[in-house]
């Protein structure tokens, strides 16, 4: 999933960028948004099983991003973000995720950035739907030096489908600021898409697309939008492990231009006491 809060540091960046976007700002459109890059992941519809804990480490490095401090928000360039995600399965259709965001950068050291909580439900298997269907909501706080919008909320429908060797996932997320400069900006639209192909049982590869189009009803201009494509590979080495590696390119002025990401996850089945369970 795409973390919402990271966008504002880049929002400011986009403002400085311009002056290019002055027109948009004058027209009162929602400020341009950059990609959040604390957790870069397109969600699948499945949830963590009950009595299972998924521990994930998201490591994202911005190789080429904003280089200036703007409105007190640190630049993204050469920031290393480490995000710890803990997801606990509640039952066979619900889970709760919890995030700890951190950032490391020359001159700023290792910093705690914020925390989010993310409950998620999905359509149970017994509905026999032709696609996977899930709904996630995420709320959390982040420090102002990383995001002037300190309290944010997101709701994320999730649709996915596995078709022979192909996998498709679509996350049309809606985001809103609860506290911060963008509190009156309304709902923003931030879709994410994943398409991948199973080369072997263990190795899949594909593309992930992340975007932030701006406020619904008044999208930002193209250069003010965030558009990012990652080439990714998933390594399915074990049902207990999750490994995802990718390189992303930003294609608009408002987007970080080069990000390297990795996800390492381990599932712990702490509830299983015997085979009869």
């Amino acid at each position: 999933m795409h973390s919402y809060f990271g966008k504002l540091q880049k929002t400011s960046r986009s403002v400085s960028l311009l002056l290019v976007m002055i027109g948009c700002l004058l027209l009162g459109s929602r400020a341009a948004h950059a990609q959040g890059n604390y957790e870069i992941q397109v969600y699948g519809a499945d949830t963590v099983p009950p009595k299972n804990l998924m521990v994930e480490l998201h490591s994202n490095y911005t190789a080429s991003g904003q280089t200036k401090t703007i409105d007190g928000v640190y630049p993204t360039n050469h920031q290393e973000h480490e995000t710890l995600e803990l997801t606990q399965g509640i039952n066979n259709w619900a889970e709760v995720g919890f995030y700890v965001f951190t950032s490391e950068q020359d001159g700023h050291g290792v910093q705690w950035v914020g925390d989010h909580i993310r409950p998620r439900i999905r359509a149970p298997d017994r509905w026999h739907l032709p696609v996977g269907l899930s709904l996630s909501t995420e709320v959390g706080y982040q420090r102002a030096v990383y995001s002037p919008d300190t309290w944010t909320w997101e709701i994320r429908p999730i649709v996915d489908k596995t078709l022979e060797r192909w996998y498709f996932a679509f996350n049309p997320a809606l985001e809103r600021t609860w506290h911060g400069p963008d509190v009156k900006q309304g709902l923003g639209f931030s879709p994410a898409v994943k398409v991948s192909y199973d080369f072997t049982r263990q190795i899949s590869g594909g593309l992930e697309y992340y975007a932030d189009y701006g406020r619904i009803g008044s999208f930002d201009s193209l250069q003010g939008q965030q558009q990012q494509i990652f080439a990714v590979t998933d390594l399915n080495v074990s049902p207990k492990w999750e490994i995802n590696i990718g390189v992303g390119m930003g294609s608009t002025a408002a987007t970080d231009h080069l990000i390297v990401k990795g996800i390492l996850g381990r599932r712990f089945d702490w509830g299983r006491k015997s085979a009869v369970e």
Partner: protein
Amino acid sequence: MREGEPQSVEIRNLTRDSEVVHWHGLYLPPDIDGAMEEGTPMIAPGASTRYTMTPRPEGFRWYHTHTFAGKNLTKAQYGGLHGLLLIEAHDNPAAYDREVFLGLHDWNGQFLSSDDGYMNPVYDVATINGKMLGSGDPVKVKQGEHAIMHILNSSPTEVHWISFSGHSFKVVALDGNPVAQAQTVSMLRLAPAERVSAIVEMNNPGVWILGEVRKHIQASGMGVVIEYANSSGKPVWTQPEDLVWNYRQFAAAGDAAQLQDAKTIELVFDSKFQGHGNEELWRINGLGYPQNSESEHAFLLQTGQRYRLVMKNKSMDDHPIHLHRHTFEIRRLEDGAEITGVRKDVVLVHAGGTVEVEFVADNPGKTLFHCHQQDHMDRGFMMVFRYA
């Protein structure tokens, strides 16, 4: 049916699909055994046919559809076209007071990706004799009776574990064939198409549950109430904590030296990945059906010859392996030494394991060999032995 007494069976196909009925565990000729791979004619929708057979061997058998389901989990074995069949010996001493027939089945399945990355059917409903626990009439028994329970797992794909709270099972036959050593056990394991015949001493009056040991499957409905005469109250279930079963416990005591005249046929089971959203293609010795049964690959059996099938399961799934028209004897299990005295027509070969069985080629004609999981059969896990 009576063993050895000629019998006519009329089959009317009232479905909308061509059908065929397999007589599981019987020694029938290929044209009526009930597998199109052996040459049994299919029965067209609306058509009737009549089989004349001499049923043998005696024991607990069954009959079922033997067609293709593919991705439609309402067809073939998923749809429940099956029945129980007892071939009675003329001299059955009947060391019991009551016969109870129980059929286990799973319903309303869908393909889901499992933890191991394989697509497998997952079911919403599990039943005994077509009823979910609490829905059907209880099985009524009397104190002091000895009941023989003939239990069939007709599930298209699932292994089941069965326990009878407050009681134990004295297993006397597997797949209808008497075992070398009858053993008293606390639970039964039945792979798809397996049968267990066990005598239960009704010595604990009350209202009890006989059902699936694994909680989530019993919660899906797999259970039946066993009620003693003059007893009432809420049915009692005592939850076992482990799953315990081994074919070996029913084998003959003592050493089981390898018979020297058995010819070895090695069969390696594996699968070919087709994507996480697709079922595997299953292979025997590197080829799926029908390629593995074409003349250049098929095994030719000599009438009267004894064969040892060395089955190596290189896949990550367990497979209930069935041989048509013959009975085999388990000779070696995954866990060690040779055994004798366990004669069956289905044996579960665990993932990564090797099981060896022997049979005598004494029933000429095409003989189908396959995994009894419907989804595996549908994806190539079959092979036809031919007689020279």
